[in-house]
């Protein structure tokens, strides 16, 4: 790792985009209007599984102001099936963005309308008559995998989209000789990012320019461009995707599913067509996540050393996790990372991913790392309790040590760096663990409010590199030197609120010896930027920062060579600081003067030495030195470039009478290596953690056994509100990654990974006097009371009639 002077990296710089965003001058997709623009609306299937017997759109077509009414069958004139976004040994169904013969989930788009206004388009939907033949539906994961389950894709012969597994070490022997064997079943429900800006797409097919322009609320305009081109069998270079300001993504905006429907309508009408997803549509189909069940068997020695882990995970991707969105892969990530930050002697994992009649499964903050974290971190607390150890002590005995890096985990990944024990130690101090336990002992039984504290540790593999899909393993970016001495960074990375519009300027400013104000990040336009891939897998601070830092370094080298040539001195005697090229103990030249000389007068001729190929800009390609798709002798591959880590704690007060959980305190200690902007990093920790709290306490897509989704509005799909959470304390450990340009690691997902396990551990701790343990999430007041009702102690104290 070469480290330049860090003047800006490490500073809590205010964000560049904030001025426009706080004044109402941001520009989100729905804010864009084009002349002649039409508005789309979609009629969606009310059944979970149904054959479409007939569709009559004649009355809708007759409505004045309606310009196109298209069914799935009509659409086949324009497009093919949705291409896979991910396919790692998966069964890929033949599905379209509009249902054809069959609809597979409640809310699947069946007919699309383009009309003069959204109001009119919705009027037209009421005039469409569809006859369905409802089919048997299956929603539960294990039911979908049962031999007699109704099949979504009969040609598959089952409902399994993919399965995978590995065994490493002497598993049977380890379990046979273990002092303790613990077993757990831990399910988690279905929820999602549900960003405040739902999806939006504005397509314009210009027949006279043979070009399709798509404004889209997406995390990755380049990926969307490829998927749109593949769907329409349209030349990719004739598709331009523009992603303006994005109102939140969290993984949910990484596909081209319903997003292609306005393209279809524009192709059909020749006019721009905008589709802004309603909240109801967003909850029905705007990508859902989580939804799985784990079976865990753990062998532990009597002195509290973890020995063997035998785990199975059954995932539920709804109707699909490959083409509609890339949800299926997260269960493979989960399987590879369930060993967590601990050392093991033997390991076996098996994953089976089921399709069912729920909405398609996409990515959501965590993408399997959360799934890996949940069961083991809950189990760690329960095992510690059985062994008579504190949760912290049990973890300490089993962590990978800080001197053991790089450490190859039993499941294959190489952990780059970290100090897990220090994170945990700092956490216990930050949350005053002993103080809380003391207060718990003092207050217990004095009122109906029961205090509890939970902790968990985590790994946040970040910077994913996934083979055989569009989520590949490289990043390309350009750093461009301008005539007036300023710098443009051209990147396929997208700012979706995480602040890269600012942090990348900090990185480039340090590398080039300029200020962040001298840099502008250009993003969100596929025709302006290289084919970079956008924020997923927290790859901004791994792939993107490394790529841009390297590009800036190379640009700086080139500029020094140019000046050395001008001044006829050694380039090694030159540096750039505060926007000025300085010769050691000698001449100076501002970058503005240099830019002028290079670009304007006298121009490049004569001043650029022969060996400098391009002094104006550097386009650099970066990939991780440790990710690998070549299986080792045990069949293991390495999908992630860095391994941030951390620990967190939640203090709760559970009201044993009403079941309400009050979150009293939250503390997080995070280790994401070198920090570029501490203010932004803490902001990510806060926001990610509260999303996790949402999943733990209230967010849930509630499908009944018929496959009907019960919460299609925000009175029943519950985001955490300001009143649901306290302030959050953050602290940091910094273990630079040896495998990235600046020692940075990803950090966008770690805080969302932990809260479910931490919350369960906290509530278990609070309810210990009643001898109950959490089995299901989310922990709504009603679910807490149902849990307490199983306790005789509770029934005597608080049951009906007491």
């Amino acid at each position, binding site marked *: 790792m070469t480290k330049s002077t860090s003047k800006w990296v490490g500073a*809590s710089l*205010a*964000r560049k*985009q*904030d*001025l426009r*965003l*706080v*004044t*109402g*001058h*941001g*520009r*989100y997709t*729905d*804010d864009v*209007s084009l002349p002649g623009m039409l508005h789309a609306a979609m009629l969606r299937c009310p059944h979970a599984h149904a054959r479409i017997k007939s569709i009559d759109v004649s*009355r809708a077509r007759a*409505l*004045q*102001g309606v310009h196109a009414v298209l069914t799935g069958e009509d659409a086949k004139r324009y497009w093919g099936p949705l291409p896979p976004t991910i396919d790692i040994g998966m069964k890929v169904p033949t599905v379209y963005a509009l249902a054809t013969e069959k609809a597979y989930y409640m809310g699947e788009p069946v007919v699309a309308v383009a009309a003069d206004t959204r*109001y*009119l388009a919705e009027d037209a939907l009421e*005039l469409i008559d569809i006859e369905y033949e409802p089919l048997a539906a299956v929603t539960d994961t294990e039911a979908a995998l049962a031999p007699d389950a109704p099949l979504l894709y009969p040609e598959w012969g089952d409902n399994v989209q993919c399965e995978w597994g590995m065994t490493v070490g002497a598993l049977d022997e380890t379990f046979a000789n273990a002092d303790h064997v613990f077993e757990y079943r831990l399910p988690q429900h279905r929820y999602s990012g*549900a*960003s*405040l*800006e*739902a999806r939006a797409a504005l397509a314009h097919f210009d027949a006279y320019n043979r070009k399709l322009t798509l404004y889209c609320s997406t995390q990755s305009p380049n990926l969307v461009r490829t998927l749109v081109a593949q769907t329409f069998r349209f030349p990719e270079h004739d598709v331009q995707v523009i992603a303006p*300001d*994005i*109102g*939140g*993504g969290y993984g949910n905006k990484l596909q081209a599913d319903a997003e292609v429907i306005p393209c279809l309508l524009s192709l059909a009408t020749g006019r721009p067509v905008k589709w*802004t997803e*309603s*909240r109801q549509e967003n909850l029905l189909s705007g990508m859902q996540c989580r939804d799985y069940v784990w079976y865990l068997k753990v062998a532990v020695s009597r002195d509290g050393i973890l020995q063997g882990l035998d785990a199975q995970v059954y995932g539920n991707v709804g109707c699909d996790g490959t083409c509609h969105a890339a949800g299926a892969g997260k269960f493979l990530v989960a399987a590879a990372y369930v060993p967590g930050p601990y050392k093991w002697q033997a390991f076996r994992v098996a994953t089976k991913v089921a399709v069912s009649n729920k909405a398609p499964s996409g990515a959501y903050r965590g993408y399997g790392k959360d799934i890996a974290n949940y069961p083991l971190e809950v189990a760690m607390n329960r095992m510690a309790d059985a062994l008579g150890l504190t949760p912290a002590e049990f973890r300490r005995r089993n962590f990978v040590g800080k001197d053991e890096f790089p450490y190859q985990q039993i499941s294959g990944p190489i952990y780059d760096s970290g100090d897990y024990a220090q994170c945990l130690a700092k956490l216990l101090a930050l949350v005053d663990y002993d103080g809380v336990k003391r207060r718990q002992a003092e207050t217990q039984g004095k009122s109906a409010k029961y205090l509890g504290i939970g902790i968990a540790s985590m790994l946040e593999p970040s910077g994913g590199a996934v083979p055989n899909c569009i989520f590949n393993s490289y990043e390309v970016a350009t750093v461009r030197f301008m005539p007036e001495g300023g710098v443009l960074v051209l990147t396929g990375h997208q700012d*979706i*609120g*995480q*602040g890269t519009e600012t942090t990348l300027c900090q990185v480039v400013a340090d590398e080039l010896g300029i200020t962040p104000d001298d840099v502008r990040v250009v993003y969100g336009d596929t025709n302006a930027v290289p084919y970079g891939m956008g924020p997923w897998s927290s790859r901004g601070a791994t792939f993107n920062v490394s790529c841009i830092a390297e590009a800036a370094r190379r640009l700086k080298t080139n500029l020094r060579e140019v000046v050395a040539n001008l001044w006829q001195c050694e380039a090694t005697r030159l540096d750039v600081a505060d926007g000025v090229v300085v010769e050691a103990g000698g001449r100076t030249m501002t970058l503005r003067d240099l830019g002028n000389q290079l670009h304007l007068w006298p121009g490049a001729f004569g001043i650029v030495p022969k060996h400098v190929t391009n002094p104006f800009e550097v386009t650099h390609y970066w990939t991780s030195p440790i990710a690998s798709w070549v299986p080792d002798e045990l069949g293991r591959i390495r999908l992630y470039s860095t391994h941030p880590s951390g620990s967190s704690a939640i203090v709760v007060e559970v009201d044993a009478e009403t079941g309400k959980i009050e979150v009293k305190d939250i503390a997080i200690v995070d280790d994401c290596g070198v920090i570029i902007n501490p*203010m*932004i990093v803490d*902001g990510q920790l*806060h*926001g*990610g*953690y*509260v*999303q996790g709290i949402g999943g733990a306490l209230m967010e849930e897509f509630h499908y009944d056994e018929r496959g009907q989704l019960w919460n299609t*509005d*925000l*009175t029943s799909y519950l*985001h955490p*509100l*300001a*009143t649901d*959470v306290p*302030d*959050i304390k953050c602290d940091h450990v910094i273990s630079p990654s040896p495998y990235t340009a600046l020692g940075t690691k990803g950090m966008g997902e770690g805080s969302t990974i932990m809260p479910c396990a931490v919350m369960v551990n906290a509530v278990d701790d609070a309810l210990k006097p009643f001898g109950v343990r959490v089995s299901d999430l989310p922990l709504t007041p009603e679910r807490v009371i149902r849990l307490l009702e199983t306790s005789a102690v509770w029934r005597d104290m608080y049951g009906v009639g007491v």
Partner: protein
Amino acid sequence: MNEMTTNRISVKLTVNGTIYTRAVEPRLLLSDFLRNELGLTGTHVGCEHGKCGACTVMVDGRAVRACLMFAIQAEGASVETIEGLAAGADSLHPIQRAFIDCHGLQCGFCTPGMINSTRALLATNPVPTDQEIRQGLAGNICRCTGYVNIVKAVRQAAAEMRASETGEGA
């Protein structure tokens, strides 16, 4: 029954100090009116049923949901949107300044509604406790920040607004 009513009614209202007269369909929501008829796209739409708060604007000095009012109901009213809060890019309102300073926004989609709710809160309660801030903003969902830095921003804005008032009074 295929006949859709498209009768338009004239509405006259003041938005950010400017008087507008437009003929609109009665069913046009105030949020769509501001965004599409007047091009004031700073008012965001997140749910269209009053739960998310993104479309919160001031109508006659009170915070209301623009998605739960028809534009024609604003006849004669004075509406203030986020665009009207700062006189220019160099003269931000203390609340806007505080949201930037405290990193009280990430994706920014909730921010206009959040700032308007903050305005309303501080107008009636210039010295709110943290709990009062959280109560006052409970009707505005933020998905990015976990609210920590929003609460911090409101605290800062309240202090600055008090200080400037005291300064003016002195």
